[in-house]
């Protein structure tokens, strides 16, 4: 039987069950809001969002591998491209771009121009330092760790455009 070719992010997304992003966006917003109320410290909220993302990522990677038919990536650059083009597309329905590679090829930025998590979101002044999309950093970190790639996913948040740095 010939090997199945890897599928593009669009085709995988088209074949998955979809839902209206609004409920997802509102749920995430309510979660962050509740975390801020319960934990009070912005740094602690960032940490919890990252941990939650990590726990999600270690499970989500299974679904990703099962449905994407991605073959083994040869280097970290390819890994980053796959995350940006296939991973984000498959789950969030948006494609990210990979920029700012460092000289070693071990660090880059994954930029989401269009991020469903931040639709209609405005951060109040007393939440400076909150990394609103930190859950995404955790998801990427968790998923990569399951692939035996220890990564430290940093984070840079601008509410208008969510950033991810690897």
């Amino acid at each position, binding site marked *: 039987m010939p090997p199945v070719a890897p599928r593009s992010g669009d085709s995988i997304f088209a074949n998955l*069950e*979809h*839902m*209206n*992003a609004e*409920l997802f966006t509102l749920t995430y917003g*309510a979660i962050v809001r509740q975390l801020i109320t319960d934990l009070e410290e912005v740094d602690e909220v960032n940490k919890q969002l990252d941990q939650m993302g990590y726990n999600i990522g270690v499970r989500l990677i299974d679904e990703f591998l099962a449905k994407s038919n991605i073959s083994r990536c040869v280097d970290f650059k390819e890994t980053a491209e796959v995350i940006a083009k296939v991973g984000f597309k498959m*789950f969030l*329905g948006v494609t990210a771009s990979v920029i700012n590679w460092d000289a070693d090829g071990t660090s880059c930025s994954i930029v989401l121009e269009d991020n469903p998590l931040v639709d209609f979101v405005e951060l109040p002044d007393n939440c400076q330092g909150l990394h609103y999309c930190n859950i995404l950093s955790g998801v990427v970190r968790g998923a990569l760790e399951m692939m035996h790639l220890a990564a430290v996913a940093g984070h840079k948040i601008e509410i208008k455009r969510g950033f991810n740095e690897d």
Partner: protein
Amino acid sequence: MVREVSESCLDSLLTEVVSCYCNRFYPNKHDLAARRIEAIGYQVGHQLSERVRARTIILLDDHLSSQCKRYTMERPRFNDHLEAIKFICKDFWLELFKKHVDNLRTNHRGTFVLQDNKFCWLARMSIDPLADSGKSPEDITSPTAGNKATHAMKMHLYFPCGILRGFLSNLGILCAVSADILTLPTCAYFSLSHTYTEITLCIYHPY
């Protein structure tokens, strides 16, 4: 065009939130965890009602709410609580869960029981009665083992209860919402007064 994401995004997020609050934040205080999860749902329901109303343009009786003053030629007004609940059972449930509520019962005295035979947020959960108890298979039928599994699943119901309570509160309907997981043909009924409505979701989970 309506933006869409994969369903597994929300599934994963909800599972993780429940796990976070039940196991990390309030490990032995399930009441506190439940209240927080319900509060998250309340937020979502409240905001959803604004956005759903913006699309369906509902006229509310002034007696019910002073908040919404939109008018429509297309949609009927909510004359009473029953109309609002019917809206939830059909349009709202469809919006959220891609299906209608399977059965609606009322005692016409303020209690409504909504029954969903295949609640999608629980549909893919399996119950392993041995998981928490560490007992032998002979004990699998003991009430404790089953209760723990059901309890774990019930924690996931606080979120949709909160959504409903939040949604209705924005319509001016104060209510309490509780949910239960049942196997057919048993049922549960709840009560309501004119100003204080109790709605209950009955959710059937085939296990």
